[in-house]
């Protein structure tokens, strides 16, 4: 490395459409742009992650891999592109993280090999390098899975080869392979069924697209720090805040369909409407126009009058936005308030089968709820989404159902966050564990405490048998009410009251202090009150609490502690 050679002939900033010969320093700038753009879109890539690609966070892994590559060349003034890409490949190899990171490092490795000892990269060399990159990457696996980053690498190489017939310019080829990469990424669900099922494109492929697009955007002078498609989990979007900001003068929304007499002068149309209201939109189909506008209360009829002057109004609709907002605000009032979590604190995620149970968990301090239970197991992705955006890396999950424990553990594997799954098999166990949460405590201690707390509580469940069977020595006829104590069938009865009382007796509820009943969505409050009265008679010394759990299928979930 010769420091004195570092002079100003190397552009610090490439201006749009200026095509410098691609030597080591130009390529360095391009790679740094790739990293910046990939990092900007990191979350968008992470969100695409689906099973069965247990690859942690694909976006994060690819960023870390590219970061290692950039670190390697950060202080280099190497002008020889062969030598520079070799350093890039070395850095990517050393920093390769996750499956996609390893594949990416192989792509770079092949890419660098093709450029070995060349001073600058022309079109032919770029194609050769892509070719080598693809070959090297494909060699790394016995059975390549198509519909992944490998496929995208293959498709861009094919496009690069074709484009060589039209141009020798590496910048033009780059432009064409960016388009090809995008098309290839969009095609991945056709090749890989799991992607299609999850309704996403391949994360690694998308990451590769961003790497190429980053270079392209830099050349075109486009910004690299604003994500192209902002992806935010719904929970992170502060919907209620946007509602407050309805400005005065937007009281009513008016939508008018009309058929103009003569061709519509659209600029004039917008100009005229701006005097009436805001949020103007105009759509056209089959000669009919639909106009959409927000207006103050006293001008509700003006848009209709105005369009009448232009032609025939076929339909008009007026909606009071104030009322809409108030309705939503009202719903928000009854919505669940979660405990905000600070960085470094422990965030807890609970799976809850019903809205009432969710509310109780929220009041106990959970940071997010995933809906799910016996017959509606949440997906790994849903669990992951619940905690991925939380501003802390210490996460505790309460699955509250034995069928969900494994899913929760799988979600834990998919993130870089430190996730502990407390194997709570029922809602009462989960709540008992929640009681011991100290959000600012030491994770290991808190988890041990929470685990221990689960044995303090007995879980009763009352539901209807869906088939006739004999389990655990109890004969059940389909349609009977059955009671389970800690997951084991203890009683079958023809009525809810006997099944519930029998369950409490089997659980030796008279030796405990508190009985909490969460009643399900299919029992009426009257029915519940009658049963609770008889429980009070039978267990006069115990404190009885009743909560609207809102869960389906289970008439009662009972916590005995």
């Amino acid at each position, binding site marked *: 490395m010769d420091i004195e050679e570092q002079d100003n002939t190397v552009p610090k900033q490439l201006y749009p459409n200026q095509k410098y010969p691609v030597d080591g320093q130009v390529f360095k700038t391009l790679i740094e742009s790739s990293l910046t753009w990939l990092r900007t879109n990191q979350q968008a890539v992470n969100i695409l992650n689906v099973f069965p690609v247990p690859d942690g966070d694909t976006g994060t892994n690819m960023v870390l891999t590219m970061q290692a590559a950039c670190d390697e060349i950060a202080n280099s003034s190497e002008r020889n592109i062969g030598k520079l890409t070799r350093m890039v490949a070395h850095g990517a190899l050393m920093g*390769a993280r996750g499956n996609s990171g*390893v594949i990416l490092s192989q792509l770079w490795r092949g890419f660098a090999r093709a450029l070995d000892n060349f001073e600058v990269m022309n079109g032919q060399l770029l194609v050769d390098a892509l070719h080598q990159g693809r070959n090297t990457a494909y060699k790394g696996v016995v059975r390549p899975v198509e519909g992944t980053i490998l496929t995208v690498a293959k498709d861009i190489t094919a496009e690069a080869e074709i484009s060589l017939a039209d141009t020798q310019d590496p910048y033009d080829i780059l432009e064409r392979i960016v388009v090809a990469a995008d098309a290839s990424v969009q095609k991945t669900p056709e090749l890989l069924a799991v992607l299609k099922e999850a309704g996403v494109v391949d994360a690694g492929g998308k990451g590769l697209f961003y790497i190429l697009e980053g270079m392209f955007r830099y050349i075109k002078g486009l910004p690299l720090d604003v994500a192209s498609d902002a992806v935010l989990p719904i929970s992170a979007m502060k919907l209620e805040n946007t509602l407050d900001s309805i400005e005065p003068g937007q009281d009513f929304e008016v939508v008018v369909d009309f058929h103009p007499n003569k061709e519509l002068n659209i600029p004039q149309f917008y100009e005229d409407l701006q005097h009436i209201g805001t949020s103007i939109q105009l759509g056209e189909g089959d000669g009919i126009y639909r106009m959409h506008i927000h207006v103050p209360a006293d001008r509700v009829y003006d848009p209709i009058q105005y369009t009448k002057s232009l032609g025939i109004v076929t339909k008009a609709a007026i909606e009071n936005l104030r009322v809409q907002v108030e309705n939503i605000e009202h719903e928000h009032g009854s919505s669940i308030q979660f405990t905000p979590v600070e960085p470094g604190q422990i965030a807890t995620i609970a799976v809850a089968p019903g809205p009432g149970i969710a509310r109780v968990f929220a009041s106990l301090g959970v940071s997010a709820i995933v809906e799910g239970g016996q017959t509606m197991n949440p997906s790994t992705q849903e669990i992951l989404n619940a905690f991925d955006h939380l501003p802390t890396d210490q996460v505790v999950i309460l699955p509250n159902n034995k069928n969900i424990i494994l899913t929760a553990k799988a979600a834990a594997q998919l993130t870089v966050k430190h996730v502990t799954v407390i194997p709570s098999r029922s809602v009462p166990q989960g709540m008992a564990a929640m009681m011991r949460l100290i959000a600012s405590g030491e994770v290991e201690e808190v988890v041990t405490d929470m685990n221990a707390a689960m044995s303090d509580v007995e879980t009763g469940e009352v539901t209807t048998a869906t088939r006739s069977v004999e389990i655990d020595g109890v004969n059940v006829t389909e349609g009977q009410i059955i009671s389970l104590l800690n997951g084991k069938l203890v009683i079958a009865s023809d009525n809810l009251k006997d099944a519930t009382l029998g369950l409490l007796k089997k659980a030796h509820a008279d030796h405990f202090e508190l009985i909490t009943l969460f009643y399900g969505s299919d029992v009426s409050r009257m029915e519940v009150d009658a049963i609770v009265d008889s429980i009070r008679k039978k267990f006069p010394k115990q404190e009885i609490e009743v909560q609207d759990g809102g869960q389906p299928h289970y008439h009662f979930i009972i916590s005995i502690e």
Partner: protein
Amino acid sequence: MSNENTPLGRVTISPRAIATIAYQAARQSYGVVGLTSKNLMEGITQVIVKDPTHGIEVKYDDQKISIDIYVIIEYGTRIKSVASSVSNTVKFNVEKALGMPVEEVNVHVRGLRVSNTD
């Protein structure tokens, strides 16, 4: 042998069946270019019979499944990343197929294959 009781009877899953799942998963793992036997003699007999569980050992005792995998990795990849990705892929696929937790997956890198020297 892994057991589960259903209303109709018992379902048993042999370690060999588990090994087949693990084998398929390992072969799809990026960076793995082959599976190999723990020792030479076994290797020779297995090559002859084309075993679909070649290079995989499954131990099962008392609710605990542990899997040992003997792999050959492509030279020039980051071995640590490849190995951790193999163990994740195998663990996930076996757990998905079985619905039972896999306690441990040990990846033994028995060699590297050199396709390109840089």
